């Protein structure tokens, strides 16, 4: 009896300790950092552009979810794929009122979801800034992004307002979208975690190899400099 209980305890504990990471991407000014601040518990109305990486770990039921917030500007977007291996899901944010840039957003979205490291992982698309008068509806945004051509099971689009009033909770539509994402992750957890672990190890190995090579090149350069100084 005791061992049974003990095993049950261990089982529950293991289940409770599920750690997953989710990456938040989308063009600059879409509202990624704003959403992160809301998830963290207090909306930040004075966000500044991200030119790098921030993360936040939040308990969601039995999951410990780490959100990666990356810069979306044209010249920093290139870092996105570096995070694809280790994530369980993607939140892709679109500024629904920035109609001039929907085509650009579509390109950025597709070059991401076509990446094999994201295949089969849930992708939540947020048609953000629905509070703005010129915002396109979530359906219109879906059409502009060409989402009708994507396999439906692994993505969902929700319209919403990331920037809440101070003290207000997260937009219920966004909350619903996030719940969908967590359900998707939970339902496929075993399969996803095996893939994520394998891909992450590969990524780490590659990064280590690159770092070792860099170190060796720098050592060689320093050696040459020393020799020249001695001459």
């Amino acid at each position: 009896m005791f061992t049974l209980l003990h095993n049950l305890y261990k089982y529950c504990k293991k289940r409770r300790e599920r750690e997953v990471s989710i990456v938040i991407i989308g063009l600059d000014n879409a509202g990624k950092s704003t959403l992160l601040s809301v998830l963290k518990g207090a909306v930040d109305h004075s966000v500044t552009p991200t030119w790098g990486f921030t993360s936040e770990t939040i308990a969601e039921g039995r999951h410990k979810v780490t959100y990666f917030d990356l810069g979306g500007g044209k010249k920093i977007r290139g870092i996105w794929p570096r995070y694809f291996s280790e994530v369980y899901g993607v939140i892709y944010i679109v500024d629904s009122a920035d109609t001039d840039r929907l085509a650009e957003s579509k390109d950025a979205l597709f070059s991401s979801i076509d990446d094999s490291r994201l295949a089969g992982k849930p992708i939540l698309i947020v048609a953000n800034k629905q509070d703005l008068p010129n915002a396109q509806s979530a359906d219109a945004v879906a059409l502009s992004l060409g989402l009708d051509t994507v396999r439906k099971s692994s993505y969902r689009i929700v319209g919403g307002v990331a920037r809440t009033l101070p003290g207000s909770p997260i937009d219920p539509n966004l909350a619903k979208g996030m719940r969908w994402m967590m359900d998707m992750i939970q339902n496929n957890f075993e399969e996803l975690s095996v893939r994520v672990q394998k891909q992450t190890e590969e990524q780490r190995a590659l990064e280590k190899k690159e770092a070792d090579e860099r170190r060796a090149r720098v050592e060689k350069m320093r050696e040459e400099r020393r020799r020249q100084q001695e001459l």
Partner: protein
Amino acid sequence: MGLLTLLRKLKRSDREARILVLGLDNAGKTSCLKRLSDEDITHIMPTQGFNIKSLVHDGFKLNVWDIGGQRTIRPYWRNYYESTDGLVYVVDSADRRRLEESGVELQLLLEETKLAGVPLLVFANKQDLINALPAHEIADAMNLHAIRDRPWQIQACSAKSGDGLSEGMEWMVKNMKTQ
């Protein structure tokens, strides 16, 4: 906007914060800081030890430590790690040859336990030079994407023109977790 203006905008409950500025020699560390303080930057000599800039506003004190980056001085960097709230790493964006060396030195810093979790601001300096690399290429060459244990930001800037400096510092001050 200089450092002091930035400080005035802050509403912090903390009394003191410490920012450490590191990077290879000739990267422009001293120039960046002098520029932020609206001082003359035409006659700057390589830093042999360190410069410290202390700013006080409304009971809050910001101490910025600028350490010399010459190779012979680098072993002494570790004397300054203690109780650092923010790390600013300055890179000469036009010095392609030494970009990897700069990245390797940064990697060593990131492995320091005393600097664990400290937010990192990389100043991609000297953007006024025509052969300066854009910030994202520097981020790539320095392997910044491998960092998971702290927030980081790469800010294109020029101590010469003043561009980008206060934006970078604003990010830093916002992201410091002072006790």
